[in-house]
């Protein structure tokens, strides 16, 4: 079935970007801060909220009740497995997970994952949507954070621990990872760009779903989120972004 109109749900840089990319891809796309304003006729809804569970679950419930039976829901699975997110819908076969970090513009590939009860037709619709945005897709097993967000969050977590332990300073850590292993960005600078809250959500999700201590978030990341130091979006993270600095 062709995708006619998409609704992007969420208050985030990623949500705004998805609207622009959808329009550039020739789709009719609208941005919504609240599920109540999503048109019931939308062919596909992309829901971008990472966490917390209570809010995301409520959002899915509302959305599910609002849109028509044939609407596909593509939901951010940074912090919850697509199966769990699907369980918050009365029609889990229409729910597909996607996991990516802002910004989407520089990414060639987007990861998609269907939960245990996801329908093949829904997955194909989600693939078609990202193709229209000029992206390749990769189908992977359903876990919180999928592949790239999970691996990057663990690298950032280790960098935050090393910083917290006084192993080296911010600039030294970032320079070392760029020059020593050719990373496209230093991990702390990278964390500031994608958002410390998003990174913490991935780590907490993987920790909760697996019970494995390898995902335990660094206390520094938790404190930064509590302090509102979320990175570029809030003007302060590992670095400061006020007054046009950095």
């Amino acid at each position, binding site marked *: 079935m062709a995708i006619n109109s998409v609704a992007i749900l969420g208050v985030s840089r990623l949500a705004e970007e998805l609207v622009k990319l959808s329009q550039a891809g020739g789709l009719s796309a609208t941005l919504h801060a609240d599920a109540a304003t999503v048109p019931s006729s939308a062919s596909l809804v992309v829901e971008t909220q990472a966490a917390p569970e209570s809010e995301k679950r409520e959002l899915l419930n509302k959305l599910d009740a609002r849109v028509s039976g044939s609407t596909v829901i593509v939901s951010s699975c940074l912090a919850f497995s697509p199966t769990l997110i699907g369980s918050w819908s009365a029609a889990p076969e229409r729910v597909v997970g996607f996991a990516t970090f802002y910004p989407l513009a*520089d990414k060639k*590939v987007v990861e998609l994952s269907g939960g245990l009860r996801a329908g093949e037709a829904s997955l194909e619709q989600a693939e078609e949507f990202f193709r229209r945005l000029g992206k390749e897709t990769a189908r992977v097993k359903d876990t919180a954070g999928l*592949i790239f967000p999970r691996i990057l969050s663990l690298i950032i977590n280790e960098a935050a621990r090393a910083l917290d332990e006084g192993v080296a300073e911010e600039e030294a850590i970032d320079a*070392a990872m760029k020059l020593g292993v050719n990373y496209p960005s230093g991990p702390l600078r990278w964390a500031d760009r994608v958002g410390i809250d998003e990174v913490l959500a991935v780590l907490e999700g993987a920790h909760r779903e697996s019970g494995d201590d390898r995902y335990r978030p660094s206390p520094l990341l938790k404190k930064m989120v509590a302090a509102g130091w979320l990175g570029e979006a809030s003007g302060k993270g590992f670095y400061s972004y006020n007054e046009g600095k950095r």
Partner: protein
Amino acid sequence: MSVNPSKIGVLGAGTMGAGIAQVAAQAGFDTLLYDVSQEFIDRGLGRIRTFLEGSRKRGKLSAEQEQQILARLKGTLKLEDFSGYGLIIEAVPEQIELKREIFKKLDADCGIETILATNTSSFSVTVIAAAARRPERVLGLHFFNPPALMALVEVVQGERTSAAAMETATGIVRRMGKTPVAAKDTPGFIVNRIARPFYNEALRILGDGGATVETIDKVMKGAGGFPMGPFELMDLIGIDINFAATQSLFEAFFHDPRFRPSPIQRRMFLAGNLGRKTGRGFYTYGDK
């Protein structure tokens, strides 16, 4: 006895030692390369000659510069020859007793102003330094492979390394044309520690059936912007080298689950599927 700051000694003429000696000679230091047999020294110097010849043929080096660099490089079989050197960098095989023996001897032979550095990646600088009577002048200079091309050097401060030794060594690294970053002596320093999840989590996802080798590499390049996928990179580094680094971090952090090695990697190591160098790793290569 005062030291000559323009003289650098390198112990070990293997890939890392020869590479570091090349960097030093190219930067204008009189460089002395030590190993336990003339054959090893000749092989190391031969590698440098081949590299420089390639640079000259690509027009990156004049014949005169090439000759000047080679004239600054000499080999020796005697550790005693290093007294009076400003900096000595040890790059012998990763065996802790061998390294400690060398530092004990260097410490006894060299004047107090000579800075003694280890290029170790898997041992504690503090443990190596403790073999010296004056651990204040011992530190880590961790070069990356291949030293001639990689800009980074981790300057590692052991528990008893003096601030003055750190400052002097940092200055010399800059004069060698490299980018120094200061790190405390902790397992894996900066890079080997923070890079661990890139490999380990990819292995974990593979082991859980999360995605195939090809898909994980495609995602990390296409979504993450990494120049190579984790499996391509492990094949390039060598499964044995990568597995040893992971095991060393796991031991050094007292079995913290964050550093737990993967059974997949161990199985490949035991089977001799070591990556590109054996023709078989996560991918297969050529007709080896």
